[in-house]
């Protein structure tokens, strides 16, 4: 993002986690409340990135392994005559999807709890920051009007 910008910038989705990274703008006179908000958002971003990158990688890897083992069981190779990657049809993949979902159920439960907590905290902090800024602006206006 350009140096003169006074806003956060959001980027394209990450290759592994599919989440969009945010670069946070640090204002010169950042209040403690604003700093808490920024740090909470940075931490949340890092947590989410870690979780989804790892999770998606595991999914792709396990999917490859599943396809490989199934193809081997059928006596086929990974690539057929035309050089195209052999795939299994949706019905065969369904077993894998079911398995993967149940294996990761506990992980998802834990993540859900954390995500809801973080989401509420961050949104609440945003509310507080917005309120503080509004009050500051009102005070500044009153001062100017007085002058």
């Amino acid at each position, binding site marked *: *993002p350009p140096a003169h*910008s006074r*806003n*956060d*910038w*959001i*980027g*394209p*989705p990450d290759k592994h*986690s*599919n*989440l*969009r990274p*945010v670069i946070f703008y640090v204002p010169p006179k950042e209040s403690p409340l604003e700093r808490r908000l920024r740090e909470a958002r940075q931490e949340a971003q890092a947590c*989410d990135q870690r979780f*989804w990158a790892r*999770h*998606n990688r595991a*999914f792709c890897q396990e999917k490859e392994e599943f396809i490989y083992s199934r193809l081997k069981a059928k006596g086929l190779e990974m690539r057929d005559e035309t050089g195209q990657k052999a795939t299994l049809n*949706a*019905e065969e*993949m*369904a077993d*894998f*999807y*079911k398995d*993967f*979902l*149940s294996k*990761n*159920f506990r*992980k*998802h*439960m834990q*993540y*859900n709890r954390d*995500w*809801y907590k973080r*989401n509420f905290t*961050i*949104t609440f902090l*945003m*509310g507080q920051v*917005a309120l503080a800024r509004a009050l500051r602006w009102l005070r500044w206006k009153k001062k100017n009007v007085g002058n």
Partner: protein
Amino acid sequence: GLFVWHLKNTGIRQIPCQFVHLCRVANDRLITFQYFNFLKRMYVTQYNKDLSQRAKPKSDSVASPFRELQQFDREKKVVHKIRPISPVHQPLSEMPSRNALRQMKSAAKTEDSVTPVRAESKDHRQWKEMKLRLDDMPGILARLSKIKLTALVVSTASAGFAMAPVPFDLTCFLLASLGTGLASCAANSINQFFEVPFDSNMNRTKNRPLVRGQISPLLAVCFAASCGVPGIALLTLGVNPLTGALGAFNIFLYTCCYTPMKRMSIANTWVGAVVGAIPPVMGWTAATGSLDAGALLLGGILYSWQFPHFNALSWGLREDYSRGGYCMMSVTHPGLCRRVALRHCLALIGLSVVAPVLDITTWTFPVISLPINLYISYLGFRFYRDADRSSSRKLFFCSLWHLPMLLLVMFTCKKSFLEKEDKGDLLGGNHGRAMEIRLP
């Protein structure tokens, strides 16, 4: 009069969506046409779905195999072109591939589903400043509140209102529709607020405003509150408390029960079906002020409809659901998924027969609706037996036109309450005359 709003998304060239708001009930024929047009465009453009939503989008995962097929056609044609030409014309080989791309693009443009994706995918690869843009706001808020789905929810509520056996009250109708629409916007916004990282990881939902950072979570919550509070207040004070209570309950059910349950248990589908069934009940209670059997019947029809609709849709999304951690029947209990869809297709037939028994419609309703109900049941049976992508898609697309058609037929077969009054008068009159004769 008929209101037609064109919602255009600024910036990206998208198909303008029109949703028709019914004012005069006599214009229902026009509504059907507009409805179909609207639905067709909705399915052809990008769109989002959840269980409570009527219409499901033609998801990207559905669009892409189609795109690949087209590509294959083009590629094959190109290959044939190259062969007869001697190797000296090597540079031509680069051209055909570009041609193929261009042809694909032009083919894609007619297949509207791909164009918005292409236009937006370029946007996606850039870094964007997270600044509040007021001129984009209408479009952003429309997507946040899932405006197309809201429109369908409002139309099912209107159907409930129209089917109620009371004289038509225009103000009440408008207030009820507005209140329901606002409540639906609020619920949808909160749903998106809760699901940001999951939406990012699913193809169907990765272009939502919160995912793309076009709006902050705080603003999304404020928007939801500013829709929900006036919406429910409007329903409670402007219509009646029962409708308001149902609206508030439905928001709660959708945001606090269905949304978290999606990741915990397959029972979410049943909860979501109830969420979808409540709007017509709200329409009915808005008109009559009480929860009669008729309201429950309409709710029952919408409830049953949700299953073939959603189960067929979710069949094609199993990979995304599995990776995203969503507990859906199509992933964990595929057999149950198909059984339930078929069961509820058949239930629709049964419910259509109950309608005249409850004096809501005449007996022509089950007769006229039998063909469409049988057809959807047939597709449900095919889905149950074949369990493949094509049968699931057929069932899903059928459900899209089946519901509006069923509601339309129901309305045209509505038992006029004037008829009932006349009958009552006649009996009263007869009694009077009989009494007179007896007295000497």
